[in-house]
């Protein structure tokens, strides 16, 4: 339990960032929703369109809405110039503000529609101008309902803000995503407790303001307002009070290997005197874009991934040729510096238990072809649709008795329990060593290579000191060393944190 408290206290900066993001989004939501609600109360078509739009936005999953702002902002660069950020705070703010719109707008419109018509007639009758009517009658009478809407929006926004981790905005989602990937439940719990606690506190304070407005008790709503303001000022000073350093931002996708390598790179850079910041848990699709736009400085990517997703190629020129072509393409197209390959692959590979492999006399995929019609293959849900499988099937003429889909975690269990004979493993996965599995070699090179490589953003491409600090990593990490580090984080008992696993990996490859 003490580990939990240590983690929770260590979340301070994420907590402050989370508050600043959520408060800005709610503030922007209010700024847009209230004038819109006033306009809607005076025009039925505006009310229909505004509420329809806000409801439509609600139907988009928050995760997708956040991700959608990347291409939107990217295309807006044509208007606002290259300086427009496409990841991090801005898209998170816009997506969350859109999300906050509906409850505020709906409550404000409903409150206006339900105002006593007699009171409104009296407001006109005593000679109020439109503005006086809004200020003296409509606003104070709607205020408790508007506040209830702001309260709902706040609780939603604080929850949804955890998802902004995936687009590179630090938040309380960082420990949640990192914990989910490394199955570190204490980390997940700490993130959830912090985020839920924040939501409850804010809900309580806004509830106080709401009741104060309803009972027309100035002390009550003023007290709530002051408490909210103090919390905000605290978060702002915490976030911006420290000296502004030029930090190297290292990205990690949502799996253990990426967290470990990011930590490994980070610790080397810190030793070289750099200030370092981690963007953990980025969506795989946004990492490359974030790098080319210099929103992040360093990423670790895989040749096969770039080959398929960025170069949009489906041929397989072989491991070395593929790497050289990618390196040239990245430098030519984006100014991204490909520092080098780390030395291991995280590819798809066909794995089976060591004893089964020995019993069947299997070493290569060619050996497998003969026995495959008697065996069951297990793959992750997308595997049998991927070019890797189609390529192997066609190159070797591979036919299995049965194909089964498993989630990645259960795939390995299926192999040990005998529900599958062969699985589509990931070659750097720690469980290959731990479960005593054999990965069959691929003499026809039907499987594309997935060499891990270090990429440096255009903005840092000329930093030779940076490149020099990372150069020792190139070619230094064997697949065995990587498997061991991954397993240290993924195993159920005696787990290591990614940082500890990175330190262990550094010692293992002689870099400490």
């Amino acid at each position: 339990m003490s580990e939990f408290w240590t983690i929770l206290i260590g979340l301070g900066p994420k907590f402050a960032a989370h508050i600043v993001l959520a408060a800005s989004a709610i503030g922007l939501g209010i700024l847009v929703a209230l004038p819109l609600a006033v306009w809607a109360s005076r025009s039925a078509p505006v009310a229909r369109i505004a509420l329809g739009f806000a409801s439509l936005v609600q139907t988009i999953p928050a995760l997708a809405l956040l991700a959608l702002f990347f291409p939107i902002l990217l295309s807006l660069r044509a208007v606002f110039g290259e300086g427009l950020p496409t990841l991090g705070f801005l898209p998170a703010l816009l997506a969350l503000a859109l999300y906050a719109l509906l409850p505020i707008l709906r409550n404000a419109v409903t409150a206006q529609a339900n105002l006593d018509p007699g009171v409104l007639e009296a407001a006109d009758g005593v000679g109020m101008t439109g503005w006086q009517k809004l200020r003296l009658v409509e606003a104070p009478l709607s205020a408790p309902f508007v506040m209830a809407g702001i309260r709902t929006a706040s609780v939603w926004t604080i929850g949804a803000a955890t998802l902004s981790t995936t687009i590179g905005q630090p938040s309380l989602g960082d420990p949640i995503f990192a914990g989910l990937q490394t199955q570190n439940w204490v980390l997940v719990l700490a993130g959830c407790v912090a985020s839920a606690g924040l939501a409850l506190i804010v809900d309580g304070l806004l509830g106080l303001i709401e009741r104060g407005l309803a009972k027309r008790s100035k002390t009550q709503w003023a007290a709530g307002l002051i408490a909210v303001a103090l919390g905000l000022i605290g978060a702002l000073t915490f976030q911006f009070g420290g000296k502004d350093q030029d930090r190297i931002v290292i990205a990690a996708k949502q799996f253990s290997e990426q967290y470990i390598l990011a930590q490994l790179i980070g610790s080397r850079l810190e030793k070289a005197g750099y200030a370092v910041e981690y963007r953990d848990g980025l969506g795989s699709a946004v990492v490359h874009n974030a790098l080319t736009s210099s929103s992040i400085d360093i990423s670790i990517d895989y040749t096969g991934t770039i080959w398929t997703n960025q170069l949009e190629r489906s041929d397989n020129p072989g491991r070395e040729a593929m790497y050289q072509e990618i390196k040239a393409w990245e430098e030519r197209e984006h100014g991204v510096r490909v520092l080098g390959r780390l030395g291991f692959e995280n590819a798809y590979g066909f794995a089976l238990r060591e004893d089964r492999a020995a019993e069947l006399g299997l070493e290569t995929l060619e050996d497998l072809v003969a026995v495959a019609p008697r065996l069951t293959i297990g793959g992750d849900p997308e595997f049998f649709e991927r070019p890797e499988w189609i390529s192997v099937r066609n190159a070797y003429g591979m036919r299995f008795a049965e194909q089964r889909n498993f989630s990645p975690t259960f795939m390995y269990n299926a192999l040990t329990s005998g529900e599958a004979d062969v699985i589509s493993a990931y070659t750097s996965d720690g469980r290959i060593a731990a479960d005593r599995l054999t990965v069959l070699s691929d003499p026809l090179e039907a499987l594309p290579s997935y060499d891990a490589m270090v990429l440096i953003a255009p903005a840092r491409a000329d930093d030779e000191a940076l490149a020099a600090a990372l150069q020792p990593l190139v070619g230094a990490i064997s697949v065995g060393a990587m498997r061991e580090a991954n397993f240290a984080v993924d195993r159920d008992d005696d787990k290591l944190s990614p940082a500890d696993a990175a330190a262990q990996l550094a010692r293992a490859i002689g870099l400490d």
Partner: protein
Amino acid sequence: MPKRDRAKKLPRQTRVKPIAKAPKTDLQASPNGPENARALLVFNSVRRQYGAVTAVSDVSCSIAQGSFVALVGASGSGKSTLLKMVNTLETPSSGQVVFAGDDVNQQQPAQLRRRIGYVFQSIGLFPHMLVGENIAIGPRLAGQALSAARISELLELVELEPPMAARMPDALSGGQRQRVGVARALAIEPELLLMDEPFGALDPITRASLGDKVRELHDRLSLTTIMVTHDMAEALLLADRVLVMDAGEIVADATPHQLLAGEGGDIAQQLVSVPRQQAEKLAAMER
């Protein structure tokens, strides 16, 4: 500022006292013909149409300064619409409403309405303001603060206790609320008082006493009052001129006396016959 306030108040108070002592002459008052009083309000061929429905069709008439006019008619006869065209809560489709020499639709609505008191059936007290604040709202809109003494005075005018100024409207009975509504309308020292079914939601006892009170205030403060009602008895008892409306037109324009004497035409007489028959039946039961 206080100096101007006093200067404004003094003539009104000196004016109030002798009239208050004077005997009531209301029901005997003759209709103020255009020859002996200036017309404060003139309707010139006023028409209000909602699509195919004509609410008010081609009404022309003038209201003399100081008169108490009742607009009587069945529901949907157009009497409320006609009244609301005075303070521009409704706009004529054609024709003109001239108030104190100016077309009402050529003026800033807010400015115009601050000169005209308005009392209506649903009262419309602002629920988030104290009774005192409700009464002071008209002057406040024009940028003047109403003194506590003046608020007390207005409350006393409508027979409410001054401490009531510190209450919220929801702590008041229906009759008390409408009294506050009347005080709010009087706070601006209106040139014209418009009342739209002002006592419609009140119980009969409250209704009768508040009706008498309004008539008394009309006389004391030398107001010009137009009251919309569907109750002919109320109109006959309070007004000195009764306009009967039917299907958007004025079908009778007479004094209560003339109406009781059988003038004004069929529709007016139908309306008069209701309270008359009730009175006769009650008188017969007493015998």
